[in-house]
C-alpha cells in the first residue's frame, strides 16, 4: 500500500482535476499513472480511486452545465445504455485481469488517447436556421446572444463509441470522455460544448456502474479515494473557469506527447 500522505494525494487529485478539466477530460487519464508510477499505489486501488474522483468531478461539472443548458439529456440517456453496459462489463473483466495485464491495457489505451487528443477537431456543427427540424435527439444551443440548432447524425457510431468508452471506464477507471467527445463532435454532428457537457453528465452514471463493483471487491481504499476526490473537486472547478484563457491547442499537443510517454512507461511497468 502507498505511504503517500493525504495532503500529497489531495494535491495530486487537485492537479489532475485541474488539468483534466482544462482539457475537457475527467482527469483519470493522468490520475491513475500518477498514483501508480509516482506514489506506488496498487493499480486496482488507483483505478477505484480514479473512478470515484472522476464521478465526483462529473457530478460537480454537470450541476454547472445544467444551468448553462448545455446537457442534451435525451441523447445522454440513450447513449448511456451502451456506455453503462460497457462499464459494467469492463468492471467485471477488471476483477479477472492480473496487475500486469491491467498495466499493459492501460498503456495501450493511454497511448491511443494521446493520438486521439492530438487529432480531435472541435467542429461547431451548428445550424443558424432555428426553424429546422432537429428531431427527437437534436437541440438548441446559445452562444453569446445567438441561438443555434443542431441535429444528431450517424447515431450508431455514437452508440458504438459510447460502448467502447464505457468498457474503458469500467476497466481502467477513466471517464471515457476522450473517446466519446471527439466521435460525437466529428461524426455525429454535436457541437463540441454540447458533446463535452453531455459526455460529462454521462460519465457520472458510467463510473457508478463499475465503481459499485470495485467497492464490492474491497478495492476502494477510503483514505486514498477521499483525499484524491476532495482534491479533484476544487481542481476541476478552477480548471473549468480558466480553460477559456489558456492556449488549449498547444496544451493538448503537449499532453498528447505526455500521454504517449506515460503509456510507454506503464507498458514497461507491466512487462
Amino acid at each position: 500500500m502507498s505511504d503517500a500522505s493525504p495532503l500529497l494525494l489531495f494535491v495530486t487529485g487537485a492537479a489532475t482535476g485541474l488539468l483534466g478539466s482544462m482539457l475537457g477530460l475527467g482527469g483519470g487519464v493522468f490520475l491513475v499513472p500518477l498514483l501508480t508510477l509516482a506514489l506506488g499505489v496498487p493499480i486496482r486501488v488507483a483505478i477505484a480511486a480514479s473512478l470515484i474522483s472522476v464521478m465526483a468531478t462529473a457530478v460537480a461539472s454537470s450541476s454547472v452545465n445544467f444551468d448553462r443548458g448545455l446537457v442534451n439529456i435525451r441523447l445522454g440517456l440513450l447513449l448511456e445504455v451502451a456506455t453503462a453496459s460497457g462499464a459494467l462489463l469492463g468492471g467485471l473483466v477488471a476483477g479477472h485481469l492480473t496487475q500486469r495485464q491491467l498495466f499493459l491495457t492501460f498503456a495501450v489505451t493511454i497511448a491511443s488517447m494521446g493520438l486521439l487528443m492530438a487529432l480531435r477537431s472541435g467542429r461547431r456543427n451548428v445550424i443558424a436556421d432555428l426553424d429546422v427540424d432537429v428531431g427527437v435527439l437534436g437541440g438548441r444551443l446559445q452562444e453569446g446572444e445567438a441561438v443555434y440548432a443542431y441535429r444528431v447524425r450517424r447515431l450508431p457510431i455514437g452508440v458504438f463509441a459510447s460502448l467502447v468508452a464505457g468498457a474503458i471506464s469500467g476497466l481502467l477507471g477513466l471517464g471515457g470522455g476522450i473517446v466519446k467527445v471527439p466521435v460525437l463532435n466529428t461524426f455525429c454532428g454535436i457541437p463540441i460544448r454540447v458533446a463535452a457537457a453531455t459526455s460529462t453528465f454521462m460519465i457520472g452514471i458510467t463510473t457508478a456502474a463499475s465503481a459499485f463493483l470495485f467497492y464490492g471487491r474491497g478495492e476502494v481504499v477510503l483514505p486514498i479515494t477521499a483525499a484524491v476526490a476532495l482534491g479533484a473537486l476544487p481542481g476541476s472547478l478552477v480548471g473549468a473557469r480558466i480553460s477559456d484563457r489558456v492556449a488549449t491547442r498547444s496544451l493538448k499537443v503537449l499532453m498528447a506527447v505526455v500521454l504517449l510517454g506515460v503509456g510507454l512507461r506503464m507498458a514497461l511497468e507491466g512487462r
Partner: protein
Amino acid sequence: MTGGVERVLRWVFTLALAIAAPLLLAGLLTHSPRLLEAGVLTVMVTPLVGVVILSVAMARARDWPFTAVALVVLAILTSSLYAAARQPPPPSPAMSRPA
C-alpha cells in the same frame, strides 16, 4: 424535456456534494472510516438518484420511449449493485472499506 428536471438535478447534485465533501474532509482529519465511507457512498449513489429522477420526469412527461431508456439505465446500475453485493468480502479489511 423542460428546464424543470435540469433544475432538480442541479439542486440534487449540489446538495450531494455539499454533504459528501465535509464528510470526506472530516473523515480524513479524524481518521474515521465511517465518515469516509459515508462520504464516498454519498458520491457513489448520486448518479443513481439522478437516473431515478430522470425516469420519473420522463414518465410524468408521458415520454414513454425515453422512460423506457431511463429504466434500462437504472436496471444496469441496479445489476451492478447486485453484482457488487455478491462479491466475496475484501481480502484485507485494513486496506479498504470498513467491514
